[in-house]
C-alpha cells in the first residue's frame, strides 16, 4: 500500500513538474506574459520614432541601468510613440523633470535602449510624470537617404 502511495505521489509530482515546465515555456520564454509589474514608478516619454525599441528594453542614465521600458503605445492624434518607462524605486526623486530622453543603439547591431540625460531642474519626476524633451532613434536608412540626397545636390551645384 505504501509502495502504491509513493508511486502515486511521484507520478503526480512528475506531471506537475512537466506542466510547470510547459507553463514556464509559454509564459516566460514566449510572448504570453503580461507587462512586468514590480516596484518603482512610471513616467511617460513621447518620441517621433522609436526605431526598434522593445518592451523591457533597458533605461539607462550615464550608462547605469535605472529602469526598463514597460509599455509602448501609439498616440493616434499626434502620431507619436508613447513609451512608458518604469524607473526603479531606488531612483525616486533623483531624475529632474527637464531630463532629456534619447534612444540609442548598443553597438552596430545591438538592441536599442533609452538613455536619459539629467537636466538642471530642482523638481523631480514622479509617478505619471512626463519627459517632454526627447530625441528619436537614429534610423540608418534615413541617414543614408539624407546623405545620398545631399551628395546629389552637391553634384547638381557643380554642374
Amino acid at each position, binding site marked *: 500500500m505504501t509502495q502504491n502511495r509513493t508511486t502515486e505521489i*511521484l*507520478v503526480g509530482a512528475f*506531471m506537475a513538474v512537466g*506542466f510547470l515546465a*510547459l507553463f514556464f515555456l509559454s509564459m516566460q520564454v*514566449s510572448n504570453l506574459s503580461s507587462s512586468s509589474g514590480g516596484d518603482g514608478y512610471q513616467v511617460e516619454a513621447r518620441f517621433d520614432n522609436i526605431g526598434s525599441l522593445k518592451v523591457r528594453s533597458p533605461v539607462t542614465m550615464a550608462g547605469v541601468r535605472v529602469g526598463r521600458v514597460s509599455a509602448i503605445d501609439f498616440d493616434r492624434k499626434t502620431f507619436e510613440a508613447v513609451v512608458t518607462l518604469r524607473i526603479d524605486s531606488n531612483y525616486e526623486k533623483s531624475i529632474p523633470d527637464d531630463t532629456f530622453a534619447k534612444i540609442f543603439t548598443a553597438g552596430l547591431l545591438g538592441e536599442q535602449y533609452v538613455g536619459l540625460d539629467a537636466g538642471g531642474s530642482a523638481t523631480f519626476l514622479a509617478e505619471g510624470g512626463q519627459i517632454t524633451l526627447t530625441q528619436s532613434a537614429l534610423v540608418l536608412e534615413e541617414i543614408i537617404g539624407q546623405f545620398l540626397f545631399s551628395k546629389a545636390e552637391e553634384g547638381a551645384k557643380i554642374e
Partner: protein
Amino acid sequence: MDHEANAFRELPVLEQLARLGRIGLGILEQMGRGHLLLWQILAGISELFTRPRLLLNQLFSVGVLSILIVAISGTFVGMVLGLQGFYILSQFGAEQTLGVMVAASLVRELGPVVTALLFAGRAGSALTAEIGLMKATEQLSGLEMMAVNPIKRILTPRFFAGFMAMPLLAAMFSALGVLGGYFVGVGLLGVDDGAFWSQMQTKIDLNEDVLNGVIKSLVFGFVCSWIALFQGYGAVPTSEGVSRATTRTVVHSSFAVLGLDFILTALMFGE
C-alpha cells in the same frame, strides 16, 4: 528446357536480386506486423480506464525514472548553448540575442529531439528488455492461458505512458536548458538580464515555436514507444534475441526520431 530454366535461375546476378527482394519483403512484413500490433495496442485503450493503476505504474517507470537524466542533460545542453552562442554572437556584438538563440534552438529542435534520443536509450531499451524477457520466460503465454490479453494488459499501458511522458519530459528539458543558458549567459558572461528575456519573448512565438515543439515530442513519444514495444514483443525469446532486440530499439528509434525531425521541421517551419 527445364534444365535451362534452372540454370537461368541460378545466375549469380539473379541471386543478388533475389536477396534484395527478400530484404524488401522482410521489411514490408515487419512494417505490416508493426501496424497490426499498433492497432491491437490502440484497441486496448479501454483497459486504461478500467485499470488506471496500470498506466500509473508505467508512468512511474517511464516518466519519473527518466527525469534525472533529462534534467541533467537539459541543463548542460543549455549551458553549452549559452557558452557557444555567446562566443559567436559576441563577434557580431549581438550577444543580447543570446536568449533568442538558446530558447529557439531548445524549444524547436534540441528539446524534443534530444529528449527522444535519451528516452529511447533510457526507457525504450528498458521496455524492450522487459517485454522480451517476459516473452522468454513465458510470462506472456502464462497470461494468455489465464485468458488475459497480454497486449491489453502489458503493452497498452506502456505505450500510452511513453506517449504521455515524452512531451512533459521535453518541456522539462527545454525549460531547464533555458535556465542553464540564462545561468551561463547572464550569470557568468554578463549578458543583460532584461535583454535576454525581452528579446526571447519578442522572438519566440507560442504557437509557432512552443506548440510545434510539443507536437514534435508527441510524435516522437508515439514512435519511440511503438518501436520499443514492437521490438520487445517480436523478440526471439532467447537471451541473445532479447539483447539484439534491445539494440534494435535504440538504433531504430534514433533513426526514426532524426528522420522524422527533418520531415516535421520542413513541414512546420519551412515556407
